[in-house]
C-alpha cells in the first residue's frame, strides 16, 4: 500500500487483486445469499480504497483501515437494498392483467421495452439512472455527469458496475 501511495502502479494492481478475495470474504460475512450485491460491494470497496488511499497511515496496521471501509460499504449496500425493496413493488400478475394498449405489440407477446424494464429493475437506483441517461437517452458521459450532479469517473464506475450486474444476470438466466 505504501508503494501504491507513492504511485507504483504495478504494486497497486497486485495489492487490489490480492484484496478482492479478502474483501469478498468480509462482505459475505455481512451480506447473505446475494452474490450480486457482494460483488457490487467489492467494486464499491475498490473504488473507495482508490479514492481515500491517501488517508492510510503506513505507521498503522492495514487491516483495520480496510475492514472499516468494507463494513461501511456493506452497510450502505444493505440499506440501499432495503430502501429499494421497501419502495418498489414487483407484481408481474398485475402487469400482465393490465397491458398497456398504447404500446404496439405490448399485448400478447413480451415487448422489447418490457424485457428492458425487467432487466433494468435488477439494478440499484443510481446504476439504473445512469444506464437510462447514457444508453437510452443517448447522453454523453459528461452530460450524464452534469445531469446527475456527479463526477465523470463516478459515471464511468456506475456504468461499469451496471453492465457487470446485467452480464451476471444474463449468465444466471441463460447459463
Amino acid at each position: 500500500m505504501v508503494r501504491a501511495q507513492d504511485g507504483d502502479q504495478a504494486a497497486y494492481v497486485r495489492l487490489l487483486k490480492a484484496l478482492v478475495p479478502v474483501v469478498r470474504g468480509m462482505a459475505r460475512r455481512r451480506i447473505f445469499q446475494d452474490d450480486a450485491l457482494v460483488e457490487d460491494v467489492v467494486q464499491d470497496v475498490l473504488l473507495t480504497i482508490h479514492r481515500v488511499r491517501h488517508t492510510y497511515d503506513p505507521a498503522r496496521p492495514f487491516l483495520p483501515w480496510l475492514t472499516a471501509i468494507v463494513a461501511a460499504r456493506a452497510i450502505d449496500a444493505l440499506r440501499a437494498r432495503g430502501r429499494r425493496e421497501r419502495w418498489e413493488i414487483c407484481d408481474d400478475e398485475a402487469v400482465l392483467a393490465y397491458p398497456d394498449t398504447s404500446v404496439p405489440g405490448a399485448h400478447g407477446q413480451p415487448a422489447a421495452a418490457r424485457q428492458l424494464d425487467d432487466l433494468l429493475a435488477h439494478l440499484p437506483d443510481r446504476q439504473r439512472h445512469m444506464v437510462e441517461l447514457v444508453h437510452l437517452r443517448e447522453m454523453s458521459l459528461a452530460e450524464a455527469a452534469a445531469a446527475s450532479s456527479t463526477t465523470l469517473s463516478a459515471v464511468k464506475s456506475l456504468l461499469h458496475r451496471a453492465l457487470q450486474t446485467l452480464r451476471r444476470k444474463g449468465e444466471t438466466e441463460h447459463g
Partner: protein
Amino acid sequence: MDEHDALIERLAREARPVRRLPAPSLRTAGWMAAALPCGFLASLLLPRGSFAWSGPGAPWAALGLAASLALAALAIRTAFALSIAGERPAHGRWLAAAAAVWLLAALAGVTGSPDPVGHLGDGVYCYTFMLVAGLPMSAVVVAALRRTRALHPAASLAMAGLGIGALAQLLLVFCHPVAGELFDLGMHVAAAATLVALTVLGGRRWVRL
C-alpha cells in the same frame, strides 16, 4: 480473469503519488489557525458589547473560556479522526468532561448575576453572534473534511459542528458580560445546536464518499 480486473487496471492507470495526511492533532491546529481568524473577522460585522474581566463572575468566565477551547480542540480532532477509516477516537471522556466543565462554569456565572433567570428574548444577540462567527468556520471545516471525505459523514460533521459551536462561544466571551442569565445561556446552547445541524446538513453532500 476476475470480473474486477478491468476496474483494477483502470484504477491503477489513474493512480498517481498521493500526499499523505498529517496527524489529526496537526490538522486540528492548522484548522484552528485558519478558522479562528475567519470567525473573528465575520464577528466584526456585528456591534461588539462591552468586555470587562472584573466582578465575581470573572473566574468562572475564564474557566468557561478554557473549557470552550479544550472542547473545540477535542471535538475538531475527533471529527478529523472519525473521517479516517479505522481510526478510533479515544477522547470521548475528555470531551464529556470539557462539556461538563463549560456547563458548570456557565451555571456558576449565572448564579453571580443580579438577574439569574433573565427574560424571554435575552440572548438573541448571542445567538446571532455565534451563527455569524460560526458559519464561516463551518465552511472551512467542510473544506478540510472534503480532503479525506468520510465514511460516516454525519458523525464527523456533527462533531465538527460541536467544535465550531465551542469556538464561536469562545469568541463570544470577549464581548459578553461575565455574568450570564439562564435564558441567555439557553440561547448559547441553541446556537451551538443550530451550528451542529447546519454543519451536518450543509456539509454532508461535500464530505460523503
